[in-house]
């Protein structure tokens, strides 16, 4: 039996033609990575390192641990370039979810640290894909800000703090079912706003 595919992400809700260019570039790079091309792997790191690091930093609030997560993820891609399956979504979207999940794993294994990094410039990436990415990021940020505060809080606590719905319910005093519904409703709102 072969290794289990590790990319469960279908898509980001982003129109297909908008991601096609970047996706095809990613696929070419991945092909070279599979052929053990160091330069291609470094290009992938340059393209998505900042994004992966930023997600990990948002969760862990510690620059050292966030870098550990980023390094481990890209090294995993280097050692297992077939872990991401083309056609099931964009590599960038996959990496952000993996970054969040790995960061939550790290968070659960250690005591919180109060070291927080300062805000700096975005990482260097391909100009075209970076422009697309920035547009999407701005759009999602806008949607997130417009969410009702209770939805926003539930989603933030679950996604970035890694709290279970029971823990969120205990913290907010709301019923479990309400928490679940808020999270799901918030996700649907984000998806619809991006698809609009």
């Amino acid at each position, binding site marked *: *039996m*072969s*290794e*289990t595919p590790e990319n*469960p*992400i279908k*898509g*980001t*809700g982003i129109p297909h033609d908008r991601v096609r260019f970047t996706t095809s570039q990613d696929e070419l790079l991945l092909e070279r990575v599979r052929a053990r091309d*160091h330069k291609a*792997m*470094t290009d992938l*790191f340059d393209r998505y*390192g*900042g994004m992966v*690091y*930023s997600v990990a930093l*948002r969760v862990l609030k510690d620059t050292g*641990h966030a*870098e*550990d997560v980023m*390094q*481990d993820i*890209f*090294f*995993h891609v280097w050692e*297992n370039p077939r*872990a991401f399956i083309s056609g*099931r*979504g964009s590599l*960038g*979207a*996959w990496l*952000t*979810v993996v970054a969040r*999940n*790995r960061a939550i*794993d790290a968070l659960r294994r250690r005591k919180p640290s109060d070291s927080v990094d300062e*805000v700096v*410039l*975005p*990482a260097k990436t391909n100009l075209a894909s970076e422009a697309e*990415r920035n547009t*999407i*990021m701005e759009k*999602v940020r806008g949607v*997130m800000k417009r969410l009702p505060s209770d939805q926003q809080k539930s*989603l933030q606590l*679950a*996604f*970035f703090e*890694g709290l*279970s719905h029971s823990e969120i319910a205990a913290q907010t005093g709301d019923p479990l079912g309400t928490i*679940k*519904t808020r*999270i*799901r409703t918030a*996700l649907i709102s*984000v*998806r619809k706003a991006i698809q609009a």
Partner: protein
Amino acid sequence: MTDNRHISEEELALHAMQTLTDEESAAVRLHVSECGACREQLAEISGDLALVAMSVEQHAIPDGARERFVDRISAGPARPLSFMRAPVIPFTPERKTPRAWSWIPWIAVAALLVLSAALGVKAYLLSQQFETVDALLRKEERLLQAHNAESMRAHALLEALTAPSAQHVMLTTGKTPPAPSARAVYLASRGALLLQASNMQPLPPNKTYELWVIPATGAPIPAGLFRPDASGSGSVVLPSIPQGVAAKAFGITIENAGGSMTPTAPIILSGAAPAAGE
């Protein structure tokens, strides 16, 4: 948690965010592996989560992170960075036990006395070997200088050992890595098996972990190969195994990359299966 046919979107969202219990997540994985509709729904939700992740404020990677990554892939397989840090555990002088340290000055003084006596005897013996007074004086002078140098070293050592402001630091190796473990969910009537392993040791490229179903009677049945990722996690989902086999236990061995039809000792992990329904 689910109705009889599908898992709710709310539960799928919680599963995608890894906020369900291990048992709940295992049940979701098992269902999703068999249900195309829920698999599709989970993929949609994961896409939504990717968007949420992209909403974070962007930061530049730390200085030197790129170089460290390039070095790492150039060096080949390696352990995660977090395992490379050997912690330095400081402890303050106030926490030391006086009795445990009280012998050190005495030992140092005794060593100094023995050293002095030895040097004195040596000086005396050497003096007998020289015929002229001048030669004897020159030798004694050198011995005296050496004696003084040794005395200064002993004094510095004694001072360092007894000074209240001295820092005492114990250096240790890295933390003991967490023990490998695995959790299996098995439905004999369907021949459905799910294994999640964690903290597994990395393997050389020509080796793989192999899962075995050990039936109540008969030979072990190979039930899938897996290699751990960089964090030591690995899984086997719905391997091709016969239905209706009552399992007595499960085991994991290390085999050659292509797998084996018979397990090779030693068994790295094993677990007895409770009676069905327990």
